[in-house]
């Protein structure tokens, strides 16, 4: 996810939107790391959404 922050900073001005979707229950971990690392790209709560099971394989 750290690499995505660099990607976000480099290409946002060109019209690229970087985003992440949390898809399991341990969202607090993601929130904590996001704040610690000061990531600024969009992060969404996708737990339980159809989108998560359609697109997340890992």
């Amino acid at each position, binding site marked *: 996810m750290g690499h995505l922050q660099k990607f976000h900073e480099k290409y946002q001005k*060109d*019209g690229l939107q970087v985003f992440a979707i*949390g898809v399991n*229950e341990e969202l607090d971990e993601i929130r904590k790391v*996001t704040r610690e690392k000061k990531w600024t790209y969009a992060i*969404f709560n996708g*737990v339980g959404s159809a*989108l998560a099971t359609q697109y997340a394989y890992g």
Partner: protein
Amino acid sequence: MLHTLLVLGTAALLAARIPEVQEKEPPKKLPEFTLKTVEGASFALKYEQGQVVVEQNKESSKPKALFIHFFQPDCNLCMAEMKALETLHQEVSKQGALIVGVAHRHDEEAVRGTREKLKITYPLLLGRGSELAAQFSRGDASILVDAQGMLRSSQVSYKEGEEKLWKENIERLLAEKDLAPAAAKREKPLEVGDKFPAVKLPSLLDGKGMSLAVEDEKLTFRDEEGKVIHPKAAVGFFSRY
């Protein structure tokens, strides 16, 4: 952390799966099964026209959400989770959700003792040696499946307070109507050229930050001030911790 990186276009979508997981993943769809309850009755899960049907005590029901907890009676976290699940069961069972416990290592006597000690009223199944337990149990583990039997979330272990999230997820499934047909189709991996589906997601950061939606067939990001962003392209990352 297990993850998949997807490269998304606004109209078309290119996907590249990065296989990082070496262990066998549980199936995406809950298989049919029949197990005994701790009371000795039969509990069967079947599919009829793509919908989950549960038969127990000679009665059948079609749960809109099914939460299955794989537990061990000698596990303290499991016991704490079962207490929370009993409370949740009292809250959501009348709305069409079903909570079930599956004992995957212990015998009937141990499970009965647990039920009596914790005053559990949701079904407890004897799953030791079953295919279901082999596929899904990871010690203390839980899965949530929808009305089509598709796995919607899963977790290993339990932390106090997580039941709030479970309730939110269950209620989200109970409220789903239009997503059901899409859910029933999502067994094949994503194909190049697939459109990004209709979606509306809140920010993860306590409601702050951007929201995401598909509006007029456009991937639409909206910041806290309501400013709309239609990107030329987007990179999406699905994160499991």
